[in-house]
């Protein structure tokens, strides 16, 4: 039984005050808050079995190694991945994307094509621009429509035998749009292209089945799903990971080293150079356990209620416009009020204890599309409540009154 009051007690930060008022945290698309189960796993690791892993024969090293590798298995199970060594620990989504982009630099030639979507975060555009510059490949962009969805007809027209890689986010961080990744994966495979899905925004809302989805790569960050910052994962099909060259050189990723030649370790170590973020990896596993104990169906149902309620309440404010209105969307609302700068609204609602994001959300192409300088973005998590939305909407109304 989903009990939001009980769940909130798991999150120490949710009981603090900001500017003298109870915190209403609605910046979950930027990062999620952490339950005590995850915080405890971090304290436990450093208090009881901190050690370097995969090397030591001593007890601590073995305990730490076991816990770290157990986390890899949890990730494997959670995302329905065929083999544990197809899970690569990374420092986060950006790191994962860069491993793939770097890997493709040796596989692409001039005039090959990479397709990205207009809904991408800057961190999802820049690595591909760099890759195109290095290889002579061409970057193609799937256009978006007024609702904030991707134009699937245009996507199919862009796909051709020259397409080598498609890159798309599962969910837009700015608009909350859920992209049709099953369809996009099928279509990419029909022309022989690989597809990389960015799950940074979806992992806290949707539990994907990556084997069924059949995508070639998937990346995400633990901190978006109640885990710590500085840890994430890259999934790649075994055949692809074998094919891509390592991204970084260092310890852990080698098999034999002489000054003449080095041979690389097998998967997953080939992509995990240096001492890993052991604690982060273990806490990532604790976060997955925590979310699954609540259940993704219950999470989705609660968030859908919050989204519907907040959308209705906000639209009752005169002059308020919501950006991102596709039928398939998650609990993210980007909006502006006519004649008022989003920065001003964000500043005032912060004084009222409400944390939202303002600005371009690292998605300048979306802002250019709507011809706006930014938006206010409220993003809800399963631990938010209807009462918090009432406080938030009242804060927006207050800001409007002060600013117009």
């Amino acid at each position, binding site marked *: 039984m989903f009990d939001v009051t009980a769940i909130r007690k798991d999150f120490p930060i949710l009981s603090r005050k900001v*500017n003298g008022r109870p915190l209403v945290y609605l910046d979950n698309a930027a990062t999620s808050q952490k339950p005590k189960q995850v915080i405890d796993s971090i304290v436990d690791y450093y208090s009881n079995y901190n050690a370097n892993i995969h090397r030591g024969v001593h007890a601590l090293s073995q305990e730490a190694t076991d816990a770290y590798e157990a986390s890899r298995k949890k990730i494997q199970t959670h995302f329905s991945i065929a083999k544990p060594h197809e899970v690569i620990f990374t420092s986060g989504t950006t790191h994962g994307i860069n491993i793939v982009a770097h890997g493709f630099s040796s596989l692409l030639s001039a005039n090959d094509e990479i397709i990205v979507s207009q809904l991408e975060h800057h961190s999802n555009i820049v690595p591909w621009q760099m890759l195109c510059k290095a290889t002579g490949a061409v970057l193609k962009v799937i256009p978006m429509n007024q609702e904030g969805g991707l134009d699937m007809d245009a996507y199919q027209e862009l796909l051709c035998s020259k397409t080598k890689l498609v890159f798309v986010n599962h969910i837009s961080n700015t608009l909350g749009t859920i992209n049709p990744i099953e369809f996009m994966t099928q279509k990419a495979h029909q022309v022989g292209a690989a597809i990389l899905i960015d799950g940074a925004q979806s992992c806290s809302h949707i539990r994907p089945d990556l084997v069924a989805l059949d995508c070639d790569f998937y990346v995400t960050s633990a901190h978006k799903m109640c885990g710590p910052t500085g840890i994430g994962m890259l999934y790649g099909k075994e055949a692809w990971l074998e094919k891509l060259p390592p991204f970084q050189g260092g310890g852990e990723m080698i098999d034999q080293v002489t000054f003449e030649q080095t041979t690389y370790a097998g998967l997953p170590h080939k992509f995990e150079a240096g001492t890993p973020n052991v604690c982060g990896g273990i806490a990532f596993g604790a976060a997955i356990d925590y979310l699954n104990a609540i259940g993704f169906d219950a999470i989705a149902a609660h968030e859908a209620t919050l989204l519907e309620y907040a959308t209705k309440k906000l639209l009752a404010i005169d002059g308020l416009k919501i950006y991102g209105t596709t039928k398939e969307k998650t609990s993210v609302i980007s909006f502006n009020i006519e004649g008022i*700068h989003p*920065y*001003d609204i964000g*500043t005032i609602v912060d*004084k009222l204890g409400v944390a939202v994001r*303002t600005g371009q959300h690292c998605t300048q192409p979306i802002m250019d599309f709507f011809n706006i*300088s*930014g938006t206010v973005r409220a993003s809800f998590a399963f631990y938010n409540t209807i009462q918090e939305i009432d406080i938030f909407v009242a804060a927006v109304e207050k800001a409007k009154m*002060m600013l117009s």
Partner: protein
Amino acid sequence: MTIKAIQEELVEEFAMFDDWMQRYEYMIDLGKSLPLIEEQNKTDDRVIKGCQSKVWLDAELKGDKMVFSADSDAIITKGIIAILIRTFNNQTPTAILNSNTDFIDQIGLKEHLSATRANGLTSMIKKLKLYATAYQAKLNS
């Protein structure tokens, strides 16, 4: 009036208000008296860069005193820049460069000094002082 005296005057004005909301409303009002930069001067080299709100700032020398004009698309930002310009307008470059901006804290706007405010006070003060440095060099040459 010296910069210090104007700053003290501002601290006194803001001390009249009991809560943040009144202080913000007053700041928004001060923004309305901002000496506005000419539209044609809203060029890229006069922009204070950041991803939140846009701020343009211009300065010229009248005699040995500096005169500023500015604008922003956000009205709270406009209020902040108006406060700064009120303290620095009609002062010599040397006086501006020798001044500090500790009064900001006293008028209850400390949060705008945070590093996350990409368009916050820190970058505005930097740009104001950059103009002062340039005009000081010009006066000394």
